[in-house]
């Protein structure tokens, strides 16, 4: 029974990583860049949701929509101001810029909302399920997070597979120049990717803070890095891979805390990452792409 409780705890945090990882993987798969500011967009989303529920007194669902709208706009602005001018330059320049954007967002958040941590009120209002006489507790957040992450995964897979815009995204991902020659507006497609990725970040932010209530300007950075790891484990660029990687990472983290050491959980998680990459360099579900020289 005990082991089940830890498994649930692991899946709970893992599902949050999975949603964050979906955003990472989506942007990487299409724009071919690591958006290290993704974790901080999550934090902004959580703050917006917090403000809407706590200061304006509006219901949770409105706060999520508001967070998604603000983050979408923010994502498009970041892309237009910070990444678009660097398109075509070395990927290192874009990476460093992304780190810069990350710091900018953290410090801006501190300026706007202050450095004192806020306690996020969970959006889930129904009571936890108690099984086996209270020995096993499944909180509402776990269920909601898993349901939403599966929905997002399925939605994204359908979107990139079936819709016109989704097909354009895959085309841009495969060969940017050829896509442009075929009449696809590459800039617009990449902006769209950022818009979707940032809207996902807003949802992730709300769910992250519903699971772990502490909200401060650095809230997004550590989960962001873990989710990036999850995306790499699952195979960066692969949508189901991000989901798998996220859940796996959460479970490994929780089990290593329980059975090995609460302090070395990070070391163990990253050791697993190295092992997986040694065996499968493209990640669990990643495609091995031959580079033409």
């Amino acid at each position, binding site marked *: 029974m005990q082991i089940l409780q830890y498994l649930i705890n692991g899946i709970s945090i893992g599902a949050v990583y999975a949603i964050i990882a979906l955003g990472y993987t989506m942007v990487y798969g299409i724009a071919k860049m690591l958006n290290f500011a993704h974790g901080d967009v999550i934090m902004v989303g959580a703050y917006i949701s917090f403000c809407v529920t706590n200061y304006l007194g509006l219901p949770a669902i409105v706060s999520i929509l508001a967070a998604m709208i603000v983050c979408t706009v923010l994502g498009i602005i970041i892309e237009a101001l910070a990444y678009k001018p660097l398109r075509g330059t070395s990927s290192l320049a874009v990476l460093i810029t992304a780190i810069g954007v990350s710091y900018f967002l953290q410090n801006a958040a501190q300026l706007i909302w202050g*450095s004192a941590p806020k306690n996020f009120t969970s959006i889930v209002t129904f009571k936890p399920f108690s099984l086996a006489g209270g020995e096993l507790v499944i909180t509402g957040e776990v269920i909601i997070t898993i349901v939403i992450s599966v929905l997002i995964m399925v939605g994204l897979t359908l979107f990139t597979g079936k819709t016109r815009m989704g097909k354009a995204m895959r085309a841009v991902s495969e060969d940017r120049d050829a896509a442009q020659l075929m009449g696809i507006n590459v800039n617009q497609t990449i902006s769209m990717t950022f818009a979707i990725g940032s809207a996902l970040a807003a949802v992730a932010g709300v769910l992250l803070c519903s699971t772990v*209530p502490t909200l401060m300007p650095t809230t997004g950075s550590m989960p962001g890095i873990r989710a990036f790891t999850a995306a790499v484990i699952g195979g960066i660029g692969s949508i189901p891979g991000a989901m798998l990687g996220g859940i796996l990472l959460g479970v490994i*983290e*929780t089990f290593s805390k329980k059975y090995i050491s*609460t302090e070395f959980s990070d070391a163990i998680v990253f050791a697993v990452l190295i092992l997986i990459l040694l065996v499968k360099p493209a990640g669990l579900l990643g495609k091995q792409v031959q580079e033409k020289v």
Partner: protein
Amino acid sequence: MKKVFALVMAAMMVVAMFAGCGSSSSADAGTIKIGMTGPLTGGAAIYGTAVEAGMKIAVEEINAAAGEDGLKIAFQSQDDEHDGEKALNAYNTLKDWGMQFFAGAVTTGPCLQIAPETVEDQIFMMTPSGSSDKIANSGSNIFQMCFTDPNQGASAAQLVYDQQMATTIGIIYDNSDDYSKGLMQGFKTKAAELGMEIAIETAFTADNKSDLSTQVTQCKDAGCDFVFLPFYYTEAAQVLTYADKIGYEPTFFGCDGMDGILSMEGFDTSLAEGLALMTPFNPDAPESQEFVAKYQEMMNGEIPNQFAADGYDVIYAIYNACVATGVDGATSAADACAKLEEYFASCTFDGLTGTGMTWNEAGMISKIPAAVIIQDGKYVAM
């Protein structure tokens, strides 16, 4: 481009020169200079800004009461962002300003960086809230206003024993934080002396503290009816929220870092009902009201925490010592330091954070530990 850069640099230097003039022109015998560094921005800013505001209130009160001929205080604060390197720069800036007494730093890391410098410069140092025992042990010129971590942990264990609060004890602590480790060790040593058994001891680190559900579940599984939480309220809020979700209701017991949990924005204070904590300062006590009112006026209605009160007390302690030993603005920092060292070895001080405070020769404080329990969203003395 280079020309523009050079011009901007030149302009900045001129401004800096004037800024320097402005602050150093106020040197006279009737004014002592007290400097402070602390995290005024960054992740730990909540502590730095609280100490700064508490100190400013004390300085204003003293200067208003001093009148025409009395001894006044010139006060300057510098931001160290809770970073050792920046703290040294901030300290050097204060020295250039002509600081005689150093009333910092706020957090332990920067305190340990600056402490050897003050020993070399022979500048009197009293930290309001740096609580590692290593700080006071760095030199004879260094004093602390707050308890050292092991002492606080030990008094917490004594209190738990005296009040018979626990049968099965669990401890969750932050193994990447000196403060938390010091408290935990103090508590554990004292608990062992008193014959109290600790059923489980589980830790987290700064990097993996975003999810503490495993640690709480471990305490639940071990059947603990008492959980000691020697860390800050940010993480404690997480522990309390998760414990509530899984229906786990032991007695939670925190230290002074827990102070502030009730004013945390968005926190459901009903979760903290029954939470006990060690804190030297109770904002709900009648003798604190005047200070609370002034603080709220300065800080947009925020309730002061113990850091603010520590800061306030440090300024009064230094000022009282100066008046008693005849130190004024013309005394050199080294002479003032020697006189204050001697004074603090034998004085007693009454302040917001306690009465009858004394210091031992290492510079560690001794005051009666006070604990409160949260009832109906308020601190009630235990």
